[in-house]
Protein backbone atom coordinates (compact mmCIF):
# COMPACT_ATOMS: atom_id res chain seq x y z
CA UNK A 1 0.00 0.00 0.00
CA UNK A 2 1.34 3.47 -0.86
CA UNK A 3 2.06 6.11 1.75
CA UNK A 4 -0.88 8.29 0.75
CA UNK A 5 -3.37 5.47 1.30
CA UNK A 6 -1.68 4.47 4.57
CA UNK A 7 -1.90 8.02 5.92
CA UNK A 8 -5.50 8.43 4.73
CA UNK A 9 -6.53 5.08 6.27
CA UNK A 10 -4.83 6.10 9.52
CA UNK A 11 -6.78 9.37 9.57
CA UNK A 12 -10.02 7.44 8.98
CA UNK A 13 -9.06 4.98 11.74
CA UNK A 14 -8.25 7.77 14.21
CA UNK A 15 -11.59 9.42 13.44
CA UNK A 16 -13.30 6.06 14.00
CA UNK A 17 -11.58 5.77 17.39
CA UNK A 18 -12.51 9.39 18.18
CA UNK A 19 -16.20 8.49 17.74
CA UNK A 20 -15.81 5.30 19.79
CA UNK A 21 -14.18 7.36 22.57
CA UNK A 22 -17.69 8.64 23.36
CA UNK A 23 -18.41 5.23 24.91
CA UNK A 24 -15.97 6.08 27.70
CA UNK A 25 -17.35 9.58 28.09
CA UNK A 26 -18.00 12.73 26.08
CA UNK A 27 -14.69 14.38 25.19
CA UNK A 28 -13.13 16.91 22.78
CA UNK A 29 -12.07 14.24 20.25
CA UNK A 30 -15.64 13.05 19.91
CA UNK A 31 -16.90 16.61 19.64
CA UNK A 32 -14.42 17.41 16.87
CA UNK A 33 -15.48 14.28 14.99
CA UNK A 34 -19.16 15.10 15.45
CA UNK A 35 -18.82 18.69 14.23
CA UNK A 36 -16.60 17.68 11.33
CA UNK A 37 -19.09 15.15 9.96
CA UNK A 38 -21.89 17.74 10.14
CA UNK A 39 -19.85 20.28 8.14
CA UNK A 40 -18.52 17.87 5.51
CA UNK A 41 -21.89 16.15 5.01
CA UNK A 42 -23.72 19.46 4.61
CA UNK A 43 -21.09 20.64 2.13
CA UNK A 44 -21.28 17.40 0.16
CA UNK A 45 -25.06 17.65 -0.08
CA UNK A 46 -24.79 21.22 -1.32
CA UNK A 47 -22.31 20.13 -3.99
CA UNK A 48 -24.59 17.35 -5.16
CA UNK A 49 -27.54 19.74 -5.35
CA UNK A 50 -25.48 22.22 -7.34
CA UNK A 51 -23.81 19.82 -9.80
CA UNK A 52 -26.64 17.36 -10.38
CA UNK A 53 -29.75 19.49 -10.02
CA UNK A 54 -29.12 23.19 -10.40
CA UNK A 55 -26.45 22.87 -13.10
CA UNK A 56 -27.87 19.96 -15.11
CA UNK A 57 -31.56 20.71 -14.78
CA UNK A 58 -31.61 24.52 -14.87
CA UNK A 59 -28.39 26.32 -15.81
CA UNK A 60 -27.41 24.02 -18.70
CA UNK A 61 -30.99 23.78 -19.93
CA UNK A 62 -31.20 27.58 -20.15
CA UNK A 63 -27.71 28.49 -21.35
CA UNK A 64 -26.60 25.39 -23.30
CA UNK A 65 -29.86 23.94 -24.62
CA UNK A 66 -31.57 27.38 -24.85
CA UNK A 67 -34.73 26.06 -23.22
CA UNK A 68 -35.49 29.50 -21.79
CA UNK A 69 -38.70 28.40 -20.06
CA UNK A 70 -36.54 26.78 -17.35
CA UNK A 71 -36.11 30.34 -16.07
CA UNK A 72 -39.54 29.90 -14.43
CA UNK A 73 -38.59 27.23 -11.85
CA UNK A 74 -35.26 28.97 -11.34
CA UNK A 75 -36.95 32.26 -10.45
CA UNK A 76 -39.48 30.45 -8.25
CA UNK A 77 -36.57 28.74 -6.49
CA UNK A 78 -34.76 32.02 -5.95
CA UNK A 79 -37.99 33.41 -4.48
CA UNK A 80 -37.65 30.69 -1.83
CA UNK A 81 -34.47 32.36 -0.60
CA UNK A 82 -36.48 35.39 0.60
CA UNK A 83 -37.08 33.27 3.73
CA UNK A 84 -33.71 34.54 4.86
CA UNK A 85 -34.99 38.14 4.96
CA UNK A 86 -37.89 38.40 7.48
CA UNK A 87 -39.45 41.42 5.73
CA UNK A 88 -39.68 39.58 2.41
CA UNK A 89 -40.20 36.05 3.67
CA UNK A 90 -43.87 36.02 2.53
CA UNK A 91 -42.62 35.87 -1.08
CA UNK A 92 -41.28 32.35 -0.39
CA UNK A 93 -44.82 31.12 0.23
CA UNK A 94 -45.67 31.01 -3.49
CA UNK A 95 -42.97 28.58 -4.61
CA UNK A 96 -43.39 26.61 -1.38
CA UNK A 97 -47.13 26.32 -2.06
CA UNK A 98 -46.47 24.86 -5.51
CA UNK A 99 -44.02 22.24 -4.21
CA UNK A 100 -46.29 21.32 -1.26
CA UNK A 101 -49.34 21.13 -3.53
CA UNK A 102 -47.57 18.82 -5.97
CA UNK A 103 -46.29 16.61 -3.13
CA UNK A 104 -49.74 16.34 -1.53
CA UNK A 105 -51.47 15.84 -4.87
CA UNK A 106 -49.36 12.87 -5.95
CA UNK A 107 -49.61 11.34 -2.46
CA UNK A 108 -53.40 11.19 -2.12
CA UNK A 109 -54.29 8.47 -4.65
CA UNK A 110 -51.02 6.51 -4.50
CA UNK A 111 -50.56 6.35 -0.71
CA UNK A 112 -54.21 5.30 -0.46
CA UNK A 113 -53.60 2.57 -3.01
CA UNK A 114 -50.31 1.20 -1.63
CA UNK A 115 -50.95 1.40 2.09
CA UNK A 116 -54.68 0.93 2.39
CA UNK A 117 -56.37 -0.60 -0.67
CA UNK A 118 -53.62 -3.09 -1.56
CA UNK A 119 -53.32 -4.10 2.09
CA UNK A 120 -57.05 -4.75 2.32
CA UNK A 121 -56.87 -6.67 -0.96
CA UNK A 122 -54.06 -8.78 0.46
CA UNK A 123 -56.15 -9.52 3.53
CA UNK A 124 -59.11 -10.58 1.41
CA UNK A 125 -56.72 -12.81 -0.55
CA UNK A 126 -55.91 -14.62 2.69
CA UNK A 127 -59.60 -15.34 3.15
CA UNK A 128 -59.93 -16.69 -0.40
CA UNK A 129 -56.82 -18.83 0.08
CA UNK A 130 -58.49 -20.35 3.13
CA UNK A 131 -61.41 -21.41 0.93
CA UNK A 132 -59.07 -23.09 -1.54
CA UNK A 133 -59.62 -26.88 -1.25
CA UNK A 134 -55.82 -27.37 -1.49
CA UNK A 135 -55.16 -25.27 1.63
CA UNK A 136 -54.02 -27.12 4.71
CA UNK A 137 -55.21 -26.80 8.29
CA UNK A 138 -52.04 -24.84 9.15
CA UNK A 139 -52.71 -22.33 6.36
CA UNK A 140 -56.23 -21.95 7.64
CA UNK A 141 -55.17 -21.37 11.24
CA UNK A 142 -52.46 -18.90 10.19
CA UNK A 143 -54.99 -17.09 8.01
CA UNK A 144 -57.38 -16.75 10.93
CA UNK A 145 -54.55 -15.44 13.16
CA UNK A 146 -53.46 -12.87 10.54
CA UNK A 147 -56.97 -11.58 9.96
CA UNK A 148 -57.82 -11.52 13.67
CA UNK A 149 -54.46 -9.86 14.34
CA UNK A 150 -55.08 -7.09 11.80
CA UNK A 151 -58.64 -6.47 13.01
CA UNK A 152 -57.75 -6.39 16.71
CA UNK A 153 -54.69 -4.17 16.12
CA UNK A 154 -56.90 -1.77 14.19
CA UNK A 155 -59.36 -1.80 17.11
CA UNK A 156 -56.49 -0.80 19.38
CA UNK A 157 -55.72 2.18 17.11
CA UNK A 158 -59.37 3.21 17.13
CA UNK A 159 -59.42 5.84 19.84
CA UNK A 160 -62.87 7.31 19.12
CA UNK A 161 -64.45 4.62 21.30
CA UNK A 162 -63.36 4.00 24.86
CA UNK A 163 -61.44 0.73 25.26
CA UNK A 164 -63.94 -0.94 27.60
CA UNK A 165 -65.98 -4.15 27.42
CA UNK A 166 -65.75 -5.99 24.10
CA UNK A 167 -63.72 -3.16 22.52
CA UNK A 168 -61.29 -3.26 25.43
CA UNK A 169 -60.94 -7.04 25.14
CA UNK A 170 -60.24 -6.86 21.39
CA UNK A 171 -57.85 -3.94 21.89
CA UNK A 172 -55.89 -6.01 24.43
CA UNK A 173 -55.50 -8.83 21.92
CA UNK A 174 -54.44 -6.17 19.42
CA UNK A 175 -51.70 -4.93 21.76
CA UNK A 176 -50.46 -8.50 22.17
CA UNK A 177 -50.18 -8.87 18.38
CA UNK A 178 -48.41 -5.52 18.12
CA UNK A 179 -45.96 -6.58 20.85
CA UNK A 180 -44.98 -9.68 18.90
CA UNK A 181 -44.46 -7.43 15.86
CA UNK A 182 -42.30 -5.04 17.88
CA UNK A 183 -40.35 -8.02 19.28
CA UNK A 184 -39.54 -9.12 15.72
CA UNK A 185 -38.43 -5.57 14.93
CA UNK A 186 -36.25 -5.52 18.03
CA UNK A 187 -34.56 -8.78 17.04
CA UNK A 188 -33.78 -7.36 13.60
CA UNK A 189 -32.59 -4.07 15.10
CA UNK A 190 -30.01 -5.91 17.19
CA UNK A 191 -28.72 -7.58 14.01
CA UNK A 192 -28.57 -4.22 12.22
CA UNK A 193 -26.66 -2.37 14.94
CA UNK A 194 -24.22 -5.23 15.47
CA UNK A 195 -23.60 -5.36 11.71
CA UNK A 196 -22.50 -1.71 11.75
CA UNK A 197 -20.15 -2.36 14.65
CA UNK A 198 -18.68 -5.46 13.02
CA UNK A 199 -17.97 -3.47 9.87
CA UNK A 200 -16.08 -0.77 11.81
CA UNK A 201 -14.09 -3.44 13.65
CA UNK A 202 -13.34 -5.18 10.34
CA UNK A 203 -12.06 -1.83 9.04
CA UNK A 204 -9.82 -1.23 12.05
CA UNK A 205 -8.45 -4.76 12.15
CA UNK A 206 -8.16 -5.71 8.49
CA UNK A 207 -7.79 -2.40 6.59
CA UNK A 208 -5.83 -0.36 9.14
CA UNK A 209 -3.84 -2.80 11.26
CA UNK A 210 -3.62 -5.53 8.56
CA UNK A 211 -4.07 -7.99 11.40
CA UNK A 212 -5.23 -11.02 9.42
Amino acid at each position, binding site marked *: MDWGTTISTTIAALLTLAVFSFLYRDNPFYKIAEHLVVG*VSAGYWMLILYHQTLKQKAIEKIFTDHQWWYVVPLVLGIMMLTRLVPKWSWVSRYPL*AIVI*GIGAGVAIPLEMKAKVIEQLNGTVDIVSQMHDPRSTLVTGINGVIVIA*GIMTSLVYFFFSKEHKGATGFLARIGIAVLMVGFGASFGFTVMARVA*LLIQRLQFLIYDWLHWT
Partner: protein
Amino acid sequence: MKRYLPILLVLLSGAFLVFQYFVPHETSEFVYEYALDWAPIIGIFAMTLGLVSLARVSWSRVRKREANWPYALVTLAGLASILVAGLWPGGGGLQAPVVAWEYSYLMLPLSSTMYALLAFFIASATYRAFRVRSVLATLLLLAAVIVMLRFFPLGPLTGPIGGMADWILYVPNLAAKRAILIGVGLGVVATAMKIVLGIERSYLGRD
Protein backbone atom coordinates in the same frame (compact mmCIF):
# COMPACT_ATOMS: atom_id res chain seq x y z
CA MET B 1 -52.79 38.08 -1.47
CA LYS B 2 -50.00 37.06 0.91
CA ARG B 3 -52.10 34.24 2.40
CA TYR B 4 -54.86 33.38 -0.05
CA LEU B 5 -52.82 33.11 -3.22
CA PRO B 6 -50.52 30.42 -1.73
CA ILE B 7 -53.59 28.49 -0.50
CA LEU B 8 -55.07 28.73 -4.00
CA LEU B 9 -51.78 27.56 -5.55
CA VAL B 10 -51.71 24.51 -3.25
CA LEU B 11 -55.34 23.73 -4.11
CA LEU B 12 -54.77 24.07 -7.87
CA SER B 13 -51.54 22.09 -8.04
CA GLY B 14 -52.72 19.41 -5.59
CA ALA B 15 -56.14 18.99 -7.20
CA PHE B 16 -54.59 18.87 -10.67
CA LEU B 17 -52.28 16.01 -9.71
CA VAL B 18 -55.11 14.00 -8.17
CA PHE B 19 -57.18 14.63 -11.30
CA GLN B 20 -54.26 13.71 -13.54
CA TYR B 21 -53.90 10.33 -11.82
CA PHE B 22 -57.46 9.40 -12.67
CA VAL B 23 -57.57 11.09 -16.10
CA PRO B 24 -54.16 10.61 -17.73
CA HIS B 25 -54.95 12.57 -20.91
CA GLU B 26 -52.18 13.66 -23.31
CA THR B 27 -52.49 17.32 -22.25
CA SER B 28 -52.56 16.53 -18.55
CA GLU B 29 -49.51 14.24 -19.03
CA PHE B 30 -47.66 17.18 -20.56
CA VAL B 31 -48.34 19.39 -17.52
CA TYR B 32 -47.67 16.45 -15.16
CA GLU B 33 -44.21 15.91 -16.65
CA TYR B 34 -43.35 19.58 -16.25
CA ALA B 35 -44.56 19.50 -12.63
CA LEU B 36 -42.27 16.53 -11.95
CA ASP B 37 -39.37 18.25 -13.70
CA TRP B 38 -39.71 21.67 -12.15
CA ALA B 39 -40.68 20.95 -8.54
CA PRO B 40 -37.23 19.55 -7.59
CA ILE B 41 -35.54 22.61 -9.13
CA ILE B 42 -37.69 24.87 -6.94
CA GLY B 43 -37.27 22.56 -3.99
CA ILE B 44 -33.47 22.56 -3.89
CA PHE B 45 -33.56 26.17 -2.79
CA ALA B 46 -35.61 25.13 0.25
CA MET B 47 -32.90 22.59 1.06
CA THR B 48 -30.26 25.26 0.59
CA LEU B 49 -31.99 27.33 3.28
CA GLY B 50 -31.19 24.64 5.86
CA LEU B 51 -27.56 24.57 4.81
CA VAL B 52 -27.29 28.36 4.88
CA SER B 53 -28.75 28.48 8.38
CA LEU B 54 -26.21 25.85 9.55
CA ALA B 55 -23.41 28.09 8.28
CA ARG B 56 -25.01 31.19 9.82
CA VAL B 57 -25.51 29.58 13.26
CA SER B 58 -21.95 28.20 13.29
CA TRP B 59 -20.46 31.52 12.21
CA SER B 60 -22.43 33.43 14.84
CA ARG B 61 -21.13 31.01 17.53
CA VAL B 62 -17.57 31.74 16.40
CA ARG B 63 -18.09 35.50 16.14
CA LYS B 64 -19.67 35.80 19.59
CA ARG B 65 -17.11 33.40 21.08
CA GLU B 66 -19.95 31.34 22.56
CA ALA B 67 -19.28 28.22 24.65
CA ASN B 68 -17.47 25.54 22.61
CA TRP B 69 -17.05 27.93 19.67
CA PRO B 70 -13.92 26.19 18.33
CA TYR B 71 -16.09 23.20 17.43
CA ALA B 72 -18.30 25.45 15.30
CA LEU B 73 -15.09 26.40 13.51
CA VAL B 74 -14.51 22.69 12.77
CA THR B 75 -17.98 22.50 11.18
CA LEU B 76 -17.27 25.58 9.08
CA ALA B 77 -13.85 24.25 8.05
CA GLY B 78 -15.39 20.95 6.94
CA LEU B 79 -18.14 22.77 5.05
CA ALA B 80 -15.82 25.27 3.38
CA SER B 81 -13.10 22.78 2.40
CA ILE B 82 -15.42 20.43 0.50
CA LEU B 83 -17.38 23.30 -1.08
CA VAL B 84 -14.26 25.08 -2.35
CA ALA B 85 -12.86 21.81 -3.73
CA GLY B 86 -16.13 20.89 -5.42
CA LEU B 87 -16.93 24.30 -6.85
CA TRP B 88 -13.40 25.23 -8.00
CA PRO B 89 -13.63 25.99 -11.73
CA GLY B 90 -12.15 23.06 -13.66
CA GLY B 91 -11.51 21.19 -10.41
CA GLY B 92 -13.57 18.15 -11.39
CA GLY B 93 -16.77 18.92 -9.45
CA LEU B 94 -18.04 15.84 -7.68
CA GLN B 95 -15.08 13.84 -8.97
CA ALA B 96 -12.52 16.35 -7.63
CA PRO B 97 -9.78 14.47 -5.71
CA VAL B 98 -10.31 16.49 -2.51
CA VAL B 99 -14.07 15.84 -2.57
CA ALA B 100 -13.48 12.12 -3.13
CA TRP B 101 -10.89 12.06 -0.32
CA GLU B 102 -13.08 13.89 2.18
CA TYR B 103 -15.97 11.58 1.32
CA SER B 104 -13.96 8.37 1.68
CA TYR B 105 -11.77 9.22 4.61
CA LEU B 106 -13.82 11.72 6.65
CA MET B 107 -17.52 11.34 5.92
CA LEU B 108 -17.57 7.58 5.46
CA PRO B 109 -15.76 6.50 8.66
CA LEU B 110 -17.42 9.18 10.78
CA SER B 111 -21.02 8.60 9.77
CA SER B 112 -20.76 4.81 9.82
CA THR B 113 -19.12 4.82 13.27
CA MET B 114 -21.76 7.19 14.68
CA TYR B 115 -24.40 4.56 13.94
CA ALA B 116 -22.16 1.71 15.12
CA LEU B 117 -22.26 3.24 18.62
CA LEU B 118 -25.88 2.16 18.83
CA ALA B 119 -24.80 -1.51 19.08
CA PHE B 120 -23.36 -0.76 22.51
CA PHE B 121 -26.41 1.09 23.72
CA ILE B 122 -28.76 -1.65 22.56
CA ALA B 123 -26.63 -4.23 24.41
CA SER B 124 -26.72 -2.15 27.58
CA ALA B 125 -30.49 -1.63 27.22
CA THR B 126 -31.15 -5.38 26.97
CA TYR B 127 -29.10 -5.96 30.11
CA ARG B 128 -30.87 -3.30 32.17
CA ALA B 129 -34.38 -3.00 30.84
CA PHE B 130 -35.52 -6.07 28.89
CA ARG B 131 -37.54 -7.75 31.65
CA VAL B 132 -40.37 -10.27 31.90
CA ARG B 133 -42.52 -7.80 33.84
CA SER B 134 -45.93 -8.62 32.33
CA VAL B 135 -47.58 -10.85 29.76
CA LEU B 136 -47.12 -8.21 27.05
CA ALA B 137 -43.44 -7.66 27.92
CA THR B 138 -42.95 -11.44 27.83
CA LEU B 139 -44.47 -11.65 24.35
CA LEU B 140 -42.15 -8.89 23.13
CA LEU B 141 -39.13 -10.56 24.66
CA LEU B 142 -39.98 -14.06 23.41
CA ALA B 143 -40.54 -12.82 19.85
CA ALA B 144 -37.26 -10.89 19.95
CA VAL B 145 -35.26 -13.85 21.30
CA ILE B 146 -36.71 -16.30 18.76
CA VAL B 147 -35.94 -13.91 15.90
CA MET B 148 -32.42 -13.41 17.30
CA LEU B 149 -31.87 -17.17 17.60
CA ARG B 150 -32.88 -17.86 13.99
CA PHE B 151 -29.37 -17.99 12.60
CA PHE B 152 -27.76 -19.91 15.45
CA PRO B 153 -26.39 -23.38 14.80
CA LEU B 154 -28.49 -25.12 17.46
CA GLY B 155 -28.22 -28.71 16.22
CA PRO B 156 -31.62 -30.42 16.04
CA LEU B 157 -33.32 -27.19 17.20
CA THR B 158 -32.08 -25.14 14.23
CA GLY B 159 -35.00 -26.11 11.97
CA PRO B 160 -37.82 -25.58 14.49
CA ILE B 161 -36.39 -22.24 15.71
CA GLY B 162 -36.03 -21.04 12.11
CA GLY B 163 -39.61 -22.17 11.45
CA MET B 164 -40.88 -20.28 14.49
CA ALA B 165 -39.00 -17.13 13.46
CA ASP B 166 -40.52 -17.36 9.97
CA TRP B 167 -43.96 -17.88 11.49
CA ILE B 168 -43.52 -14.75 13.64
CA LEU B 169 -42.49 -12.71 10.58
CA TYR B 170 -45.22 -14.00 8.26
CA VAL B 171 -48.12 -14.22 10.71
CA PRO B 172 -48.26 -11.95 13.82
CA ASN B 173 -45.61 -9.53 12.52
CA LEU B 174 -47.46 -9.23 9.20
CA ALA B 175 -50.74 -8.55 11.03
CA ALA B 176 -49.19 -5.91 13.31
CA LYS B 177 -47.28 -4.14 10.55
CA ARG B 178 -50.27 -4.18 8.20
CA ALA B 179 -52.49 -2.58 10.85
CA ILE B 180 -49.84 0.11 11.39
CA LEU B 181 -49.49 0.55 7.63
CA ILE B 182 -53.22 1.06 7.14
CA GLY B 183 -53.19 3.62 9.96
CA VAL B 184 -50.20 5.44 8.49
CA GLY B 185 -51.72 5.35 5.00
CA LEU B 186 -54.99 6.88 6.17
CA GLY B 187 -53.03 9.47 8.16
CA VAL B 188 -50.90 10.49 5.17
CA VAL B 189 -53.92 10.76 2.89
CA ALA B 190 -55.91 12.75 5.47
CA THR B 191 -53.02 15.17 6.01
CA ALA B 192 -52.46 15.57 2.27
CA MET B 193 -56.16 16.28 1.75
CA LYS B 194 -56.13 18.84 4.58
CA ILE B 195 -53.21 20.57 2.89
CA VAL B 196 -54.79 20.59 -0.55
CA LEU B 197 -58.12 21.84 0.81
CA GLY B 198 -56.43 24.63 2.77
CA ILE B 199 -57.36 23.31 6.23
CA GLU B 200 -53.74 22.66 7.19
CA ARG B 201 -51.78 25.91 6.68
CA SER B 202 -48.82 25.65 9.03
CA TYR B 203 -46.44 25.79 6.04
CA LEU B 204 -47.45 29.44 5.59
CA GLY B 205 -45.78 30.45 8.85
CA ARG B 206 -47.07 33.31 11.00
CA ASP B 207 -48.77 36.63 10.06
